[in-house]
Structures are given as C-alpha cells and as structure tokens.
C-alpha cells in the first residue's frame, strides 16, 4: 500500500491529469447513454449559482447603456446651451423610451395575438443571456420551475418555433434553439406534405435531412413542425426553403432553410404550457407496472 502511495506521489501530475480527463470524458459519455441524473444535477447546480449573476449583469448593462447614452448626448455642449440641450436630451430620452415601449408593445401584441388565436396556454419570458460558447446555440430565460416550466416544453416566437426547454432551475431555464447543431425536430413541407428531420446547421440556419430523393421540394416551400417525435406540436412554422441539395449517390436529398423566427435578436419568447412533455410520458410509462 505504501508503495502505491509513493508511486502516486511520484507521478501525481500525470495521475491528476488522467483522473481529470477521465472524469470529463465520463461526464460526456453519461450523456450519450442518457444516464443524465448526475449530469443534470451538476448542470442545474452551476446554472442555479451563476444565473443570478447573469441576470444582474443583463440589468446592469441595460442601466449602464442608458447612462452612457446620457453621457454621449450631453458631452461637448456649450455652457449657454446647457438648459436647452438638457431639455432636448430629456425629450430625446422620452422619445427613445416611448419608441422602445411602442416596439415592446408591438412585440407583446404579436405574442398576445398568437396566444388568443391558439388553444394552447403560453407563458411569456424574457431572454437574459446567450450560450457561453460559440459551438452551441442556447439562450437563458428568466422563468423557471417556480413558473411551471419543465424540460422539453416547446418555446415559440410570433414568427415561428424557437426551440425547447432543456434545463430548468427554480428561477431560470435554458432553451436549446432549433439552430443548435444537436437540435432536431420533425419537419413537414407544407405544400407537398413530405416529412423530414430539421436540425441545426452550424453557421447557416437550418437543414431538413432525410427527404426522399423523389420528393417534390423547391425553393420557397414553407416548412412547419410535423408533430412527430412528441416534443413539438404540429403546424408551428420552422422556415422557408432557400436551397435544395441533391448529392450524387446519396439516398436522400436535403433542403437548407432560413428560420422563420429571428433567433439572433430574441428578446421575449413564449413557452407552450400544458403540453405533455416527453419527460412526463417517460415518467408515466415507468410508473406503470
């Protein structure tokens, strides 16, 4: 035993590196095997600890940008014009505030109209942060399990599908966007009713894969969710076909889509509530004898 300790002490650098790399690899492997309890706990614990800081940063940035705008507006003014320029500044800020309120009202009216025309229940949430890497596409929203959010609930904007909830803490949640490279949704070409799998396409919108070679797909076709897969309800707009790719020898053709929702500039989103998520179905199934 003492020899073992001595060896460990002698090669401690290598041992620590090996153990650390193996732990990281094990964590990644657990997710592939859908053995997610440890991983989800770790993720949610870190997210729970860090999300208040991110929310605070988002609020601070909003406040500071307003202060900076004031500074820029007032800088370099002549002494005799201070009063007039202050008034102009105040009016300008009021106009900016009103314009901002008008834009917000317009966005919220869009969300409300969608809520009224649909039979589903929605919950509105604000986007407070973006993915911490450039490799994946997720957003952080300011609603969590306290507001009734659960994993796999669909998230939409007035224009179309945004993604699905992948992690939930009491006060915040992470949403995987449909443009994320590991995201997938059942898609339906609205004109011809051909189905395929819509997934993220790094740096270039969305792609519909597994479309039969003889299927009728042309540029301009609208694509909506097919409802297959048990996560996204049928009929939510996904995007418009901007290119069709047929490679020689391939068994399927692919279509490149421009997403309907402007995912780069999301400020508010709606979570589709009251739908039975895949987690519920799995839990229910596990309960049955």
């Amino acid at each position, binding site marked *: 035993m003492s020899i073992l300790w001595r060896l460990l002490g002698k090669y*401690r*650098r290598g041992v*620590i*590196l090996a153990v*650390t*790399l193996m*732990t*990281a*690899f*094990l*964590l*990644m492997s657990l*997710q*592939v095997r859908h053995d997610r309890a440890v*991983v989800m706990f*770790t*993720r949610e614990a*870190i*997210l729970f600890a*860090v999300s208040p*800081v*991110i929310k*605070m*940063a*988002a609020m601070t*940035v909003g406040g500071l940008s307003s202060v900076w705008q004031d500074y820029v507006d007032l800088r370099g003014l002549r002494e005799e014009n201070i009063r007039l320029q202050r008034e102009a500044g105040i009016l300008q800020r009021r106009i900016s505030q009103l314009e901002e309120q008008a834009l917000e009202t317009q966005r919220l009216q869009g969300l409300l109209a969608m809520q009224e025309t649909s039979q589903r229940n929605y919950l509105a949430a604000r986007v*407070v*942060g*973006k*993915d*911490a*890497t*450039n*490799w*994946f*596409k*997720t957003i*952080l929203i300011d609603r969590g399990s306290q507001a009734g959010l659960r994993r796999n609930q669909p998230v939409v904007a007035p224009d179309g599908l945004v993604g699905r909830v*992948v992690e939930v803490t009491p006060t915040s949640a*992470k949403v*995987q*966007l449909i443009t*994320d*490279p*590991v995201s997938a949704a059942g898609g339906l070409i609205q004109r011809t009713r051909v189905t395929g799998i819509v997934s993220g396409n*790094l*740096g*270039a919108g969305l792609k519909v894969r597994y479309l039969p070679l003889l299927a009728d797909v042309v540029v301009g076709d609208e694509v909506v969710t097919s409802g297959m897969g048990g996560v996204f309800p049928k009929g939510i707009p996904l995007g418009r076909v901007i290119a069709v790719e047929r490679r020689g020898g391939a068994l399927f053709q692919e279509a490149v889509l421009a997403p309907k929702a402007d995912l*780069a500039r999301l400020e508010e989103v709606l979570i589709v509530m009251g739908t039975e998520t895949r987690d519920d179905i799995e839990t229910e199934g596990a309960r049955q004898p």
Partner: protein
Amino acid sequence: MRMFLLSLLACAAAQAVLLVPLSVGGVRPDCFLLLVLFLSPRLSPEVATLQGFGVGLCQDALSGGPLGLKAFTYSLLGFLTARLSHKLNTDKPLAQFWLLLVGAAGAGVVTFVLSCFFVGLSPLVSVLWLIVPEALYTAMLGFLLLRVSWVRAVITQST
C-alpha cells in the same frame, strides 16, 4: 481562491451578456479560455489542471454542449500551459499574441475532435466558421487585456 471565483463569475456574465453585442457573424471572444490561458502559467501543473477543469465545467453548464467538453479541453490546456510556462513566459507583445492565438486554436481543435463523438460537425465548416475566427478574436481580446494594468493585477491576485 476568492479572486478566482469572482473572475469566473465575471467571465460567465461577460460571455453570456456583455460580449453578445460584440459578436461578429455569431462569434464572440472566449473569456473562459482567456482565464485559463492567463492563470495557468502562474500555477503548478496539478492546480492548473484542476482550475481548467473547473472553468470548463462552468462554461459547459452555461452552454448547450455536453457537460465535460470544455472541462476536458481546458484541463489539458491548463496542464500544458503550466508545464511549458518557463518557455512561454514572454513580455514581447507579438509573441504574446501568437501564443494566445496558438492556445485558442489548439483549444478549438480539441473541442472539435471531442465534438465529433457527440455532435458530428463538418470539419471544414467548423474550421471556417468557428475555430479560426474564435481563436483570432480571443487572441486579440487577450492581447488587449494584457496591456491593461489592472487586469494584470487581477491575474496576479487570482493565482
């Protein structure tokens, strides 16, 4: 330790909120990577490995990727940077920029190789859209930050 945790939280806030308006073509500089590259040369390889693991785990938790992806990359990067610190320690600005660029590109390549197991990204697209632009942008930001004296003071206090 307290300074390290504060730096980590600051990186999280910067990455998720502050740097978003600076993104070019959807690519932002990687603050977490800079934290590892700045701190590791001042630490022992063991501590740098564990620190890289912690930073990577935090970034993984705030991203949509598999947990452990960045933890693996930064553990390796932390270890190598600390191990080679006596060779990498330089005050020459151009050398600092190149070292940051090589470190960031190396981290990008490791992330890509690991992602292949889980995501299946196209190599050409990844290199053109992510690894090269991210490495360049991160190296530029890191180079500018190293010119700021209080950033150097924070790095010294964090280690």
